[in-house]
């Protein structure tokens, strides 16, 4: 059992695991890029459907977690050693040397205190340190990496997405089918620094569930799924008749024609007729979607021939040469994705933790941690240990001079 546990433990705590895993994914990306232009999307698909790649990716959060535990253990062990209550293991310090002779720790304490070190003397040991440790920043960074890779893993393997048209006056097209009626869609200019527009989608209460209002960002949630508005458009009711189509044609349709000027095609089935429609831009420069003064501008084609073009306001009609085009009803519509993805929060948390780690690392970078420890092992033998984060040449000099001093007093 131990034989199996040891490599697993090494895999979960080694600093080498992340670059090896990332390297394997990089090589996979390069390999895929030889065959397709959309290598990233292909790699994501491949990972989603490959248990081996998912397992490999799962190593990253597990390794981050394992390294959090290792780092915490080292921090606590070092604290115990400096306070004189723990064994100063070799892996906790950069230098470790045993000196014969005796030593007065009071002298050393004064010496290090004079050099700006904080000291702690216990029975048989003296610890001295200065600066700020980078360990908290490393711990936060590792926690951030855990969240990031866990978020990516969850997002890749468990994301569910469905798209629907959210139309005023119609039920919310939620994947569960349980959604109240969309009472109102409101688009307005936004004063913020980031978003130029605000979108409000008000859904009426249904049964025992309360109503809800969804916006652009951060996206609201409906029954656990994010409501992610993608594009704006118009839901239209079209009535059309032609001399050779006397029975007429009528349909409810969604038109992706926002902002004004954007075209959409509309085929009349089982006939040679085809519309190319767009939303006319009001002369006053206002936004028809925001004001609600919407209309439809269209070109009517019969086969390859353009018959005529015109413009119809909501509720209006155009009659010409035996043709009738009417749009009795135009409503605001938002093409919306309903996304179930529990990885998003982890990725956001990772971003926050990385920022926090940077803030914690900056003071540690300016005031590097230096530590020394002297322990009386047995009569006539002293163990001296030193550690510095960063290069620490000056600290090394101070440590060695302290050792020189100790030896000079023990001829």
């Amino acid at each position, binding site marked *: 059992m131990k034989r199996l546990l040891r490599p697993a433990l090494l895999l979960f705590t080694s*600093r080498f695991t992340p670059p090896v895993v990332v390297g394997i994914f990089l090589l996979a*990306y390069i390999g895929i890029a030889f065959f397709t232009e959309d290598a990233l*999307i292909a790699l994501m698909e491949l990972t989603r459907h490959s248990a081996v790649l998912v397992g490999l990716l799962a190593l990253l959060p597990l390794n981050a977690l394992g390294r959090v535990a290792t780092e915490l253990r080292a921090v606590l062990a070092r604290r115990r050693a400096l306070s004189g209550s723990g064994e100063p293991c070799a892996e906790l310090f950069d230098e470790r040397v045993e000196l014969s002779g005796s030593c007065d720790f009071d002298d050393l304490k004064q010496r290090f205190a004079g050099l700006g070190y904080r000291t702690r003397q216990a029975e048989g040991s003296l610890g001295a340190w200065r600066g700020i440790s980078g360990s908290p920043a490393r711990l936060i960074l590792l926690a951030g990496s855990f969240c990031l890779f866990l978020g990516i893993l969850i997002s890749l393997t468990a994301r569910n997405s469905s798209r629907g048209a959210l139309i005023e006056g119609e039920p919310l097209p939620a994947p569960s089918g349980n959604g109240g009626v969309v009472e109102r869609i409101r688009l307005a200019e936004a004063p913020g620094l*980031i978003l130029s527009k605000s*979108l409000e989608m008000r859904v009426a209460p249904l049964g025992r569930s309360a109503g809800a209002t969804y916006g*652009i960002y951060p996206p609201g949630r409906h029954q656990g799924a994010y409501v992610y508005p993608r594009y*704006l458009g118009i839901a239209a009711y079209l009535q059309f008749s032609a001399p050779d189509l006397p029975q007429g044609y009528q349909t409810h349709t969604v038109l992706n024609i926002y902002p004004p000027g954007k075209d959409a095609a509309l085929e009349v089935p089982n006939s040679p007729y085809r519309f190319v429609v767009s939303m006319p831009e009001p002369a006053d420069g206002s936004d028809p979607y925001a004001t609600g003064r919407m209309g439809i501008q269209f070109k009517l084609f019969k086969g390859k021939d353009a018959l005529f073009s015109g413009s119809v306001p909501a509720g209006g009609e155009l009659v010409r040469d035996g043709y009738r085009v009417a749009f009795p009803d135009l409503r605001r519509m938002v093409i919306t994705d309903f996304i179930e993805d529990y*990885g998003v929060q982890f990725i956001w948390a990772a971003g926050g933790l990385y920022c926090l780690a940077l803030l914690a690392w900056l003071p540690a970078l300016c005031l590097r941690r230096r530590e020394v420890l002297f322990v009386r092992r047995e009569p006539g033998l002293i163990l001296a240990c030193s550690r510095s984060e960063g290069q620490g040449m000056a600290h090394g000099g101070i440590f060695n*001079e302290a050792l020189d001093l100790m030896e000079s007093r023990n001829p």
Partner: protein
Amino acid sequence: MLLKLLPHFLSWAGIVLVLLRAFPARRPVCAALGSAGFAAGVAAVCFLLRAFPGDLAFGIFRGMMGGSLLLLWFVSVVAVYRSTTRDFAAPRGGGVTDGPAFAGACSIAAGVLAGAVCACRVSGGGPGSLPFLLLVPAAAALAFALLPLEARLPGSLTLSRTALVAPVVALLLFSSSSLLRLDLFAPLSMKVMKFAHDFVHQFMESMLFPDHFFIRSYLWGYIGLLFGEGVGFWGALVIWFTPVALVLLALQLERLPSVAHIRQGARRRKLLATALGERRRRLVIPLLSLAVFGGAAYQSRYPSVEYWDPKPLAVAATPAGEIVIPKKGDVDLQDGRLHKYLYKQGAKEARFFVLMGPSGHFTVDLDACAICKPDGYGQAEGTVICYYCKTLIPLETVGRAGGCNPVPINFTEKEDGIHLDALALINEWGNTVQTTTKVKEGGK
């Protein structure tokens, strides 16, 4: 021809010097095996060009150049870990790097690639031509001539095993960057640009960020920078230089010898000063490699190749909406060169070219691709190049849709010339340019 080969032989000389300095105990072996590798590289190119005419030989050796850059990345990352990890567990057989087999393998591998690049350079004369035959003796003579020269270089100029790969790869990439079809930096820029675009798009979708329509235009302008050519160039530079920077960092972070057991201050200081001095000297060759990498990137960015890029000739459509381009006339369409035309219809216009490929068949394509801004194409050395992203497209594949290939247009070849539909041309140009301009200017 000699002038063309000069940068390649300079690179070869540099590689030989580095190998001789890295393996001082096996200098003649390195020179001999390096030359043998060089001969093998030349022979391989000769064989591949004869057996598979076209772009395969270039593709294989460009792939190997890419592999060498990946190897440098691997070595540099391991070096950083080795320098920053206490009790770094060397892989089993770590002592192999001191053995003769390692020195020989390094010499042969470097020789094969250097020889292949030189052979690709003279491939214009055809495999088996005189320059081909002279390459190997010239390279071997140079390698053995450098033996006494290397012995006179300062002994303090040392090279660690970690740093060995950096100058060799730098010199190989410098050598290959002067050949359009072996150059790695330009395709790397394009791949990075594509990756950045896909990554930003996927990230925004995954994090449920709103589309550009909802975001302030100034902010979208900044996000749009991530979709531009600049990202490809700067990203490629980062990938290009980082491994050598990591090697330098690894050398700088190497632990100094422990002096805590020495009780004489003067002895301690001397030991540390010696270690610091040696460390500084070991930085010299990687620093020079950094400069060579810079030279390779510069050569790729500003190649000394003159592209055939004719001014587009204006053409008109017949009343039936057909554009007819005669095969012979002011322009000879069968000369294997790219011929550009400009068609205007009211305020709309479309730029396209006609080319007779190596197979003897015509192709008509937009002077634009489906990915990049429509900066157009130039022709050189058996390829056409996209001016926007510097991607090389072998002449054999022009006319096939996809990637950075020019967008093909339907046409008919008749006795009197090439016939194509003017409306289809205008529509195809409109669709392509509209899409690529939107993408490059920051559309999702």
